[in-house]
Every structure is written in C-alpha cells, then in structure tokens.
C-alpha cells in the first residue's frame, strides 16, 4: 500500500511529467486570473461605494490586502515545498520553492509600498516601526535571503538545503505578522476579514476584495508554473529528454 503511494508520488513528481502536465494547466489559471481580476477591478474602482472615514483613498485596499495575503500564502507554499524537498528528496518540491521566492518577494514589496502609499494620507506617515510593518519587512528580507542563497551556492543540492532551511526557520515570522496587530499596540489596525467574528467590511466592498484576492492567487498559480518549468529546464539541462525537447523549441 505504502509502496504504491510512493510509486505514485514518484511518478507525478518527476520533473518530466510535471513539465508535460503544467503546459496544459497554465491557461486554466491564467485566463480565470485575468477575468476575475478585471471584474474585481471594475467592482472595486467603479461600483464599490466611498468609505465613510477614508473617502476614496481606501480603494488601495483592493490591491494592498490581497498582496499582503499573497506575501504570507506564497511564503507558506515555499517553506512547505522546501521541507518536502528536504525530507523526501523530491526535486520538484525544491523547484516549486525556488520558483515561488521571487514572486513572493514581489508581492511582499507591493504590500509594503501600497501600504506606505495608503499610510501617508490616512495615518500621516509613510512608515512606522510598529510590529506589523516591521515583521512584514523581515518577511521581505527572508525572501531575499532565500533567493541570494539559491543564486550564490553553485551546487544545486547544497543550495536547496541551505535556502530551504532558511525558509523553514523563517516560518515563525508568519504567525507573528498575522497576530502582530493583536499581540502588540500597533498603528496598523486589526484584522478586517480574517477573524472569527463576521468581517467588518460592507459586502459591496468585501466582494471586490475577495475577487482580487482570488485573482492574485490564480495569477500566482500561473506564473509559479512558468517559473517552475524554467527550473526544470535549467536543472535537468544535461538530461536527454530536456535536450531532445529543447531542440524542438
């Protein structure tokens, strides 16, 4: 039984099988991402009403919050993949982790900058060293650290081990970011959507927010596949099937 499952995992996690499957999968994520994103943008910018306190400036929420959610989500995907790669020696998992890092870093950067652009008119400052903002900045450094280790270490296996370890250790930062607004006095407000209570946002604003979050997730799924395919080509470049395939491209 266990053997059968293991054989199954081996088959589906083989880079060759992944390369063939992912080509078919990408449009199934990319096209819905564009459609859901366009509809979310339309609802967020044209239909959602003005906020009672923040006026039109609150519309930054439709990109800031999904970007911040993605920064955490992608980190968890990256760390879990790295752990799978480290423990079960599944090479595809290491490739997914390596492919996720730059995307996660870009969403973290986006969350920080859009937050800053929202903070200036509302809070009165671009930046404060409160727990939420500081822990999110540390997340960006964790992504950078992972990417730097990946590119600096020549031997791929060593690189995966070192960067994977960093990614796993860095997971402690994830709950810190989420609960920072509860554990400490922060300038950043508390959770709006992710709480046991019902979300404290009007439904007409919540729908575009969730649509944009879904669009970002689908977008990530599409681009992480593109990047992971690059990792397959690069890491298996001396294997016969890659060479034969590349001659046809």
């Amino acid at each position, binding site marked *: 039984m266990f053997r059968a499952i293991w054989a199954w995992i081996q088959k589906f996690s083989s880079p060759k099988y992944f390369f063939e499957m992912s080509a078919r999968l990408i449009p199934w994520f990319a096209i819905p991402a564009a459609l859901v994103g366009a509809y979310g943008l339309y609802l967020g910018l044209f239909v959602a*009403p003005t906020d009672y306190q923040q006026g039109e400036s609150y519309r930054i929420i439709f990109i800031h919050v999904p970007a911040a959610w993605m920064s955490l989500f992608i980190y968890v995907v990256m760390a879990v993949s790295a752990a799978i790669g480290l423990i079960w020696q599944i090479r595809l998992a290491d490739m997914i982790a390596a492919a996720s890092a730059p995307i996660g870093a870009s969403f973290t950067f986006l969350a920080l900058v859009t937050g800053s652009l929202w903070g200036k008119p509302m809070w*009165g400052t671009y930046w404060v060293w409160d727990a939420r903002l500081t822990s999110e900045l540390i997340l960006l450094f964790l992504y950078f650290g992972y990417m730097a280790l990946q590119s600096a270490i020549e031997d791929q296996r060593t690189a995966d081990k070192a960067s994977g370890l960093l990614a796993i250790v860095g997971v402690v930062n994830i709950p810190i970011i989420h609960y920072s607004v509860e554990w400490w006095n922060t300038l950043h*407000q508390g959770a*709006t959507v992710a709480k046991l209570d019902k979300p404290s946002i009007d439904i007409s604003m919540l729908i575009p927010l969730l649509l944009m979050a879904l669009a970002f997730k689908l977008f990530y799924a599409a681009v992480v596949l593109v990047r992971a395919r690059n990792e397959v080509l690069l890491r298996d470049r001396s294997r016969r099937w890659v060479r034969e395939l590349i001659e046809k491209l």
Partner: protein
Amino acid sequence: MSTKRGRRKMLVILVLFGVAVATVLGLSAFEENLLYFYSPTQVKAGEAPKTRAFRVGGLVVKGSVVRASDTLNVQFVLTDNTESMPVSYSGILPDLFREGQGIVAMGTMNVAGQFVASEVLAKHDENYMPPEVAAALKATEDKAKQVGSANTNTL
C-alpha cells in the same frame, strides 16, 4: 575557478550575515516598539518614560479640539475611556484626525502635565462601509442608547 568559488563563498557568508543583521535590527526595533504606544492610563500610572520621547495612543475627546486661528497650534484631550490627558501639537494633522478618532502621538510630557506632541498619526479602525451605512448604524446605536438611558431612568 577557485577565485569564483571563493567569491561565492564570500557572498554566502555576506548573505547570512545580512539576514542575521536584519533579524537583530528587526528584533531590537520590536523590543523598542513592542509596546508601540502607551495609553493615558499607563502614562498616569507612571509607566511611560519620563526623560525621553514616547508615544501615547487614544481617542480624541469629542468637543475638546481647540485650533489656534493664526497658527497651526492645536490642543485636544486624549482618552482611553478611563484616564485622559491634554495634548498640544503644532503642525499639519493627518486627514483622518477628527474628534472621536483614534490617534497616536509622539512627544514628551511638560512640567504642566501636558503632552507636547512632535508628531500626530491617525489610527483608523478595521471597519469599512459606505457613509449611508455608517449613518444608519449610528442612528440605531443612538436609539439603543436612548432606550438604554430611558430604562435606567425608570429604575
């Protein structure tokens, strides 16, 4: 080849060093701002630093804001619904600064027991709704209050 490898080794060490420094800096920033601001109750209890600048957070008491007509000076009372303290500030206030709104002010206590702020930041809540909904909510809240006070009156 060997110099390239040496350079890479250096880079790895640099990266690890950078991550370590970033973590230490982050943690010390955390330590310092673990309690990003003090409440008026904590300030009254003497928990806030006396010699250096610190932050206080609370709500701006309704009707307490006094603006000077010719300068940017503003005075208001800050409360956490238990204790309150007077604050004075000179400068441009953020758009969200209004009576009843949460703010965080950076500054020091003067001898008169007034908090002299060098920076005032608005802290907004996690609620988002259109103005009509906010007005309707407020109306029902006021009604509930009236009913509540009527009940206490009859007691």
